[in-house]
């Protein structure tokens, strides 16, 4: 309950430090419990973009929920700026979910604006900011549409705009470009990089696409099969992002090797 943290209204703040400390987590199912995270520890420096890659079902999304305070870890501590992340609404973060989760009774711009008004912005300002971010994700013509009128990729872009519009200090993204076609994805990835430069949030980005992780991440956190731990943290340098460079190929091979993928595509 600290009062020093103002709502996202000011927007100009840089990100803070995110840390996972010895996290264990399990889910209860009908047939018993499933261990998902097994002793996960890593930290993301302020303003850094960390991309989490790993096999599907290894608990990448669980990590995001823990960082967002939507889940409490079975054991271990998640810290934001040194303080334990509390369960419930946290005003320092914005998150884009795998299922966009738009409110079907609100049109697109209200879907983006509602987080801003919830966090204390005036309605007029909220709608203006929503329009800005919808322009950015290329949905200027769909502001008055309702979610059931959007394609999957468009809905996902609204979800991204909604998270970005909060101008959060911590941005959590769960495969945000998964439902988007390849062309739009490349465009969005580039837009996304320039957007991050505006206020340098700390970013935790879950993806199954290793090349996307190299392109967008400052570090790549490679997770193992469930129950997942951190296999390796791979730093990404500027020259690694040039897809035509040998450095990119080496980085890709290194990350894939950590995931247990080796050799040629034909199985050699």
């Amino acid at each position, binding site marked *: 309950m600290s009062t020093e943290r103002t709502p996202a209204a000011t927007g100009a703040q840089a990100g803070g430090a995110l840390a996972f400390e010895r996290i264990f987590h399990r889910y209860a199912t009908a047939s018993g419990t499933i261990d998902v995270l097994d002793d996960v520890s890593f930290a993301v420096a302020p303003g850094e973009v960390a991309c989490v890659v790993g096999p599907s079902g290894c608990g990448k999304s669980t990590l995001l929920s823990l960082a967002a305070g939507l889940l409490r870890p079975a054991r271990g501590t998640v810290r934001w700026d040194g303080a334990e992340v509390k369960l419930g609404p946290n005003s320092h973060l914005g998150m884009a979910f795998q299922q966009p989760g*738009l409110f079907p009774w609100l049109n697109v711009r209200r879907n983006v604006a509602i987080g801003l008004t919830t966090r204390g912005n005036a309605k007029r300002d909220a709608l203006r900011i929503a329009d800005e971010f919808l322009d950015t994700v290329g949905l200027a013509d769909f502001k008055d549409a309702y979610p059931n009128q959007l394609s999957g990729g468009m809905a996902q872009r609204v979800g991204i705009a909604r998270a970005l519009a909060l101008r959060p200090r911590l941005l959590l993204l769960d495969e945000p470009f998964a439902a988007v076609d390849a062309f739009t994805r490349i465009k969005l990835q580039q837009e996304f990089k320039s957007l991050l430069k505006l206020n340098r949030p700390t970013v935790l980005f879950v993806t199954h696409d290793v090349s996307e992780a190299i392109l967008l991440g400052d570090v790549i956190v490679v997770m193992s099969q469930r129950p997942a731990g951190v296999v390796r943290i791979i730093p990404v340098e500027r020259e690694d992002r040039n897809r035509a460079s040998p450095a990119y190929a080496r980085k890709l091979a290194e990350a894939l090797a950590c995931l247990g993928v080796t050799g040629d595509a034909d199985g050699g």
Partner: protein
Amino acid sequence: MSAPIVRAASGGRFLRNRVLLPLVGVLIVACAWEATLLVYQLPVIVLPAPLSVVQTLGELVVTASFWHDVGISLYEFGAGYALGVVGGVAVGMLMGESRYFRMTATPVIEAFRFIVPFAWIPLTILWFGTSFTGKILLVAYAVFFVMVVSTARAVAQVEPTLTRVGTMLGMGSVALALNVHLRAAAPGIASGARAAAAIGWIAVVAAEYIGASAGLGVLITNAASSLATATVIAGMIVIGVVGAGVSEAIRWLSRAYLDYR
């Protein structure tokens, strides 16, 4: 493809679907009725002819006492319905939001839910006599349980992602309940409200049959005791028409609110 678009497409189709075909349905019933009279040679006291019922209906609707009876029934229904919907949605929301409340309330609600409103009629007469209060409470009772169950179910079925999104956006539990869960459950609540209207309307008339000084049920029981069978049937038709009108009005209201679908 929503209904308004279809309707806008063709006025002729509207005439056919909403006027002509329903009239054919009414005519078939009237013919079967007339045929029954011819075959069995029934006396007027047992079953009057359709046309004489229509004629009685025509005489009925120009009297002030008829509209007084309709007004009383609608008043009892409206007050009880509003009470039952508000109370039922509130309790249903609490059941959807709080596990403790749900665990506490479920056995009581499940038990009362199956004590149909009609079983309460003797007690309401004992407690409230033939006053409005008894009938209003009876309607509220009938409506309440339908609304509790449909609201709790609709809230339980809200997409979990929406809850996570609401929390992420900064909503606390009260804001989540009102701005996300109630709103997302609205279609389910609205269809519950339509079912509840039918049950509430039936409850009003049934209660009036047994103990009341005015209302459509009284109109019918009075007519029956003076063997005015045509008036009995005319009153029954009025009950059906008013009930259908109430249901349509509620559907129209809920559609205005839910047109995002």
